[in-house]
């Protein structure tokens, strides 16, 4: 019986191998939950793949984790949104060069009842201070992602002590954007989110955009080829062709052409 089992298992394992050994050329892109959850990749990647035959495999995690994965060499291209961290990544030699790709903006969403009365405010820092002052529930990513870093930068301009508030009205989920929105909506709390994820989000409840239009809410995305001099296995040629395509007129037009419910989600601004 044991020999029989071994043979069966051997056959199962052999059947599972072809996919792993597929000859198709592919690159791995470490990216963020906002680009995946909004559906952008589903829209633009087929165009690149049809033109080049290179399969793009996207690992969508928070920006902080994406950068750490790329530092470990577990990706050929990094496509995230935390400018300072991206520049540090390149300065430390992990990436060849950083390029602007596109932007959108962050917004503060909250319940229609708006207990802190921030609806219509343009000054995002003042709005956050007002939410803190009212002791209204604010749900944060708390995961070192690009959105979390942007949120942290806004709070640092207020005199709110988040350490003390954490667990009280300030709640850190340690999760992705969508998961955090689900929690924020469940708690009737305020959430800072990128606009793309929000527009594409399917579970808005009674929440709506309350604060928008502040220059400090600008959200820039960048793309970096992981440095093949640090990680020799990086597919530099295929990775660079993806970076070049994203920055090309064709790639930029593909990004601009992605709409959800008639609204453009990302605005290309490659130089």
């Amino acid at each position: 019986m044991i020999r029989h089992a071994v043979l069966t298992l051997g056959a199962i394992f052999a059947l599972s191998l072809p996919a792993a050994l597929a000859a198709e050329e592919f690159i791995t892109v470490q990216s963020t939950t906002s680009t995946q959850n909004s559906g952008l990749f589903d829209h633009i990647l087929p165009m690149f793949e049809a033109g080049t035959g290179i399969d793009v495999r996207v690992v969508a995690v928070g920006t902080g984790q994406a950068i750490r994965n790329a530092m470990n060499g577990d990706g050929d291209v990094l496509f995230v949104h935390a400018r300072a961290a991206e520049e540090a990544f390149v300065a430390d030699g992990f990436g060849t060069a950083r390029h602007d790709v596109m932007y959108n903006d962050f917004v503060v969403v909250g319940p229609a009842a708006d207990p802190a009365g921030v609806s219509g405010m343009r000054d995002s820092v003042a709005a956050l201070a007002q939410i803190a002052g009212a002791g209204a529930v604010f749900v944060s990513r708390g995961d070192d992602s690009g959105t979390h870093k942007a949120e942290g930068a806004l709070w640092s301009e207020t005199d709110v002590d988040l350490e003390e508030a954490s667990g009280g009205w300030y709640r850190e989920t340690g999760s992705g954007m969508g998961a955090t929105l689900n929690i924020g909506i469940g708690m009737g709390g305020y959430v800072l989110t990128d606009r793309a994820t929000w527009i594409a989000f399917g579970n808005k409840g009674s929440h709506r955009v309350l604060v928008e239009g502040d220059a400090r809410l600008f959200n820039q995305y960048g793309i970096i080829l992981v440095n093949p001099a640090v990680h020799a296995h990086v597919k530099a040629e295929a990775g660079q062709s993806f970076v070049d395509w994203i920055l090309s007129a064709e790639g930029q037009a593909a990004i601009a052409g992605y709409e959800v419910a008639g609204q453009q989600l990302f605005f290309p601004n490659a130089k």
Partner: protein
Amino acid sequence: MPGLMEAFWDALRLIALGDADLWEIIGLSLRVTMTAVGLSCLIGLPLGAVVGAFRFPGRTALSLILNALMGLPPVVVGLGVYLMLSASGPLGVLQLLYTPTAMILAQMILVTPIVAALTRQVVEDLNEEYAEQFASLGVRRMERVAALIWDARYSLLTVALAGFGRAVAEVGAVLIVGGNIDHVTRVMTTTIALETSRGNLHLALALGAVLLVIALLVNAAVMAVRHTAQKVAYA
């Protein structure tokens, strides 16, 4: 808010429509989990049987460890496998990260202790029953293990199903080592997590129901095999 019954109808519709993407995801889920469970049985059954059938120094400690490892948190296993397989890790040269093989490895680590610990219990109980017969017939040690596994085969099938249940429902480990890459490492549980994070709660719930239906079918198939085999054996 979507209701549970509604989700079940949607699940049946999703299955009936035969969406190619969905079938691909279901197929990968089954391939990864069944391979992992199969390999886990290859290790766990003999290991559990040996611990269950023989007395040796450190046996109690080994049983204890196997039992405790049943509670391994999937995320920790995922992290451990990630660190091993990462390009900067000791096994980085194999380039297995973000492949189905990495997911099989992670699930094996989760399932093997379950198979081994439950097998130990089953075999230990049976061994007590058989001890006198073995002694009177002068059965050799390895033959004893084989005989115990064979005679306990129907109970061990349930053990394998327990392992299957753990592996097919698990999301934390496969998300980290597989990366939830579309058409490559996307399985049922990571798809459900993704759709939940997109706010598509209705679709996520329907997919959950699909997963439940699959688990039901697998269990029914195993039960049918067992039933037929028993009928043949006692005919």
